[in-house]
């Protein structure tokens, strides 16, 4: 990835270099990078001649995000995109830590489509689960008092009926 790109080449293909927090370099087309509103704004005011540091995002996450942006800047048919999105999510959700970082990064970079996609997948993990199952899956420590818990259970009893 760390190939040296001359200025002429950059202008011809409108390429831009993005640098992750761990100094990994990614050269992508401008329209791919523009999928992120934040990067778009930075490019608009600073130009694309020099590499743009994306300090808050690690290399593996940025790589995955750019893969998404590249696919989504091609304008392919809806069915193809839906299938691709599903495969992309299936791969990402296997590692919760990675998935979590991916969501934070896409939120930080303002890629709304990707945030929505991740939120839907997250919602799928929470669906039809009892509070205890959710706590176990996400290692959530239950710090509610007995009274608080009972209060919720009685107020919204219908929601806790066996699924």
């Amino acid at each position: 990835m760390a190939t040296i790109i001359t200025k002429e080449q950059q202008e011809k293909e409108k390429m831009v270099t993005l640098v992750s927090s761990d100094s990994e370099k990614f050269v992508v087309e401008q329209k791919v990078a523009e999928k992120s509103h934040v990067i778009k704004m930075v490019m608009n005011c600073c130009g694309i001649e020099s590499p743009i540091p994306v300090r808050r995002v690690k290399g593996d996450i940025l790589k995955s995000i750019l893969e998404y942006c590249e696919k989504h800047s091609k304008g392919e048919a809806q069915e193809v995109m839906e299938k691709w999105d599903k495969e992309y999510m299936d791969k990402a959700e296997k590692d919760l830590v990675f998935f979590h970082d991916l969501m934070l990064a896409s939120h930080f970079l303002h890629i709304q489509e990707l945030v929505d996609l991740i939120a839907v997948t997250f919602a799928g993990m929470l669906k039809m689960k009892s509070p205890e199952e959710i706590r176990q899956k996400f290692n959530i420590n239950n710090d509610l008092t007995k009274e608080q818990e009972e209060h919720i259970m009685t107020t919204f009893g219908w929601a806790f009926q066996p699924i």
Partner: protein
Amino acid sequence: MERPWKIQNLSLDLDEFERYTDKIKIDRISKLPDALLLQILSFLQVQDVMRVCCVSTRWKHLWKSVPSIDFTEAKIRTTGEFIRAVNKALSNRGGLQIREFRVCVDSDLCQINNVDYWITFVVSHNVEVLYLDCTPDRPVSVNKDKLCLIPQSLYRCQYLHTLTLKFCQMDLPSIFCLASLRKLHLELVEFTNEDLEVLLSNCPSLKYLTLKNCSKYTHLRVFAKNSHNENLNIHEDGLNSETDLLVSAPNLLTLNFSGQSKRERFFGENLKSLVSVNFNFSSTYRHIWDPEDCFLFGQFIDHFCYVKSLKLSNWCILNLSIRAILNLGTSVSNMVSNTVNEATLATRFNKCELAGLVYVLKNFINLGVLILNVVEDVETKFEDILKDEGFYETTYWKPDELSVVGLQQHLRTVAIHGILGSKSFSSTAELVPTEDILDRRRTEFEFVRFLLKNLKELETMFITPTEGLNTFSDSKKLDILFQLSSRLLSLPRSSPNVQVIIRPIQHTGIGINRTQLRL
């Protein structure tokens, strides 16, 4: 002794170890900012939101701020408890926006003033997506049942962009404007034709309109004159005798018909922008075939022969076949289209349907792309009708006939999805010799042979075998695929450059990859 690889290995292991422990111990999801957690929760039903918000203090108060309230799958929709639950969910909001509100409520149990209160409440909270289904839990008859009346407050909602109403009645105010409304779905909604026209003319941004079983017993007239009215879906079940359907929409791009429409007459006025039409009519087993109907459908389709893309369901193909076989229509009107470029047809590849397929090939003189979706073979009364009319197998169209005069020559791409028919083969089919399995689908091969022999400009033919092949063992499946390929490739061709490409079996329905087709 220095062993750098060893050190490296060790550090890698540690890294992995940390990552692993990280994964099992740390609660990361609770550290996400509120905005993201609310976004996740906005994709859940209310009962799921409640369960999630019961896990810890971090989550406890989030339910009050979730921007969407969705009660459509709540199990208690037929009890008074449901009304209280909805009221409770709404009353704790404060001033926050309610972006989406979806609710299914039984009109028998729900008092009108409850629905009034909910709609007025969410409208005052700038709702953007509203879904209200009042269909009761029993068979309905539109004429007798009292429909739920939509409160006047709805018509003052300036942010609403998607509206779905089922089993409701609309009483339009004299002056109103739903300025942001883009999608409107009305189901079992009764209105006079004047009302519909007034409604449409007061929704200046409306782009998608769906009418499902509306005005079944009276004439339906759709006047969509605004510049954004681009998409219209009309779905009608059951019989509508002696009523008319009229569509007048100068900016309409796509038009979809579905259900089992039996409207007596169709009028299309001012449809000059129309690009694609989908006739997705279906019929049930009980549906009685009547040659008279087919004649009418033939006239119906004549209205649309100037569009670019046309989709026909299996029911339509059967109708066209009857028309072609009985020679109806040829003397009355001559449906020749020189604009249709892409046709998608659903066929069972039954031998009597070939007449309908050839009818399309003959009459759409500028067809460039033909997509055939093979659907499961079901019994119809089609064959019986032909027999009653005095037509027997000998009069069906046969691929060997030389009656291909006028067969258009622009067709460059043909795609056949789901060749070899049925969705799943019986368990005994495994033992049937491969040759016999293929021989049973002889009409498919004959039609492919016919296409390859007669289409001089053909460039590509895509063949996708049926998903049903997955029910066989792997070795049998491979054997079938080999024999299928061998048969297809040995067919004689008239076009020197034609490529026959067998594509992998698809698992998710029939996906038509447009970009791939254009390559």
